[in-house]
């Protein structure tokens, strides 16, 4: 496992909305849970380097990726962060194989091919390698997007509701495969969701994000206890 001791402190104002969070990724899995509009996606985009916060700092794997006080903001492509969103955004003109290979062009062709096959196999998508991205189903696209994000062996994988819109069987299968990453311990994962049934299965530290602020942090049951009634209503 890489020596990851990240510190995250982000403050971001967007109109009347303020995101103000400070936490560490102390576990291999961190779940950010909260209602729509809480700032989950904004936070992930800032961590990925796709958006610039008003102020903040972000340390990951011994590197300072963001420190607005010292004018440091590492480019998204050099942060060693994978990001998979609800819409997988596969390159439509490429095959599944070429999509996964996109971020590892620097590898020798043989090593690249091995890595691509390994990543596709990890998500049960090895048979899709030669398929054009446009011919993949929703679930297949998610599998290829996850394989693509993990191919460059990032230090951190950001997952923004990656299972949204999938049928239960596909979602469960992908989740099990993602959980197998925990045992290999190769990457830290920040998993955003507002689906309680989804995060219930994850061995993660949970951050409850409300209106841009972390209001609770800790094990799932402890964090969600004050919201029990509301969440049970959601499940019904």
């Amino acid at each position, binding site marked *: 496992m890489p020596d990851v001791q990240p510190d995250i402190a982000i403050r971001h104002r967007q109109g009347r909305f303020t995101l103000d969070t400070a936490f560490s990724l102390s576990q291999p899995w961190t779940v950010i849970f909260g209602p729509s509009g809480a700032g989950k996606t904004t936070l992930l985009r800032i961590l*990925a*380097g*796709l958006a610039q916060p008003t102020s903040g700092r972000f340390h990951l794997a011994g590197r300072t990726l963001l420190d607005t006080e010292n004018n440091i903001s590492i*480019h*998204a*492509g*050099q942060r060693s*962060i*994978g*990001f998979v*969103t609800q*819409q997988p*955004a596969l*390159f*439509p*003109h490429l095959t599944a194989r070429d999509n996964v290979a*996109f*971020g590892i062009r*620097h590898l020798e062709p043989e090593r690249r091919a091995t890595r691509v096959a390994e990543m596709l196999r990890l998500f049960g998508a090895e048979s899709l390698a030669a398929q054009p991205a*446009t011919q993949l189903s929703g679930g297949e696209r998610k599998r290829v997007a996850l394989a*693509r*994000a993990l191919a*460059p062996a990032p230090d951190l994988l950001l997952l923004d509701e990656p299972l949204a819109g999938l049928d239960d069987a596909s979602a469960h299968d992908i989740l099990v495969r993602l959980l197998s990453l925990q045992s290999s311990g190769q990457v830290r994962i920040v998993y955003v969701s507002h689906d309680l049934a989804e995060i219930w299965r994850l061995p993660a530290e949970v951050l409850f994000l409300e209106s841009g602020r972390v209001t609770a942090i800790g094990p799932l049951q402890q964090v969600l206890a004050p919201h029990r009634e509301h969440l049970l209503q959601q499940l019904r």
Partner: protein
Amino acid sequence: MDLQALWLSLRLAATTTVVLLALGIPLAYWIASARTRLRPLVEAITTLPILLPPTVLGFYLLVLLGPHTAIGRLVTHLTGHPLAFSFSGLVVGSVLYSLPFAVQPLAAGFRSVDTALLEQAQLLGAGRFRTLTSVLLPLSTHSVIAAAALCFTHTVGEFGVVLMIGGDIPGATRTLSIAIYDQVQEFSYAAANRTSLLLIGVAVLALVILYARRVPNGAPNA
């Protein structure tokens, strides 16, 4: 039929199209992605030739490239001959005159590519050049073809700019449209008719190539 003029027009149009794609692709990429205050100004300047009468553009180019300006003298020193009244001068004039016909469709094509794809390319370590060559251009082939077809036909048909910069030198600067003008001046209406039909044919062919690449609504995009 003035075959010399036909060959010159085709050579001019092909050269102009190649130069315009080489210049227009990076310029359109910058216009489509820049977040600086300069962008509207640059976009306005590149669009200006659409609004200017061709003779105005041709006149200022003739003055600018003539022997009485520093630019004109520098070009003469570097190339050994003045740009005015030469094929190279026609290319410079045509490139400027048709610039919006390259930049506008290319910029529109680049802007239509899903931002999420560009962000993924960025996250996967692609720099601006690789994002352009590996994502934007393959996803904007229709726009590239449209730009090329428009530049080619626009150059084949241009009159004012080439007449002002190049004059009417057979084999050197007399293009098809100038040949038509000459034929009409000489009351050779039959010859003017044949040359005009040829120009119409070139334009129709370019448009057929352009529209053949468009996929009807609801049809799968090959």
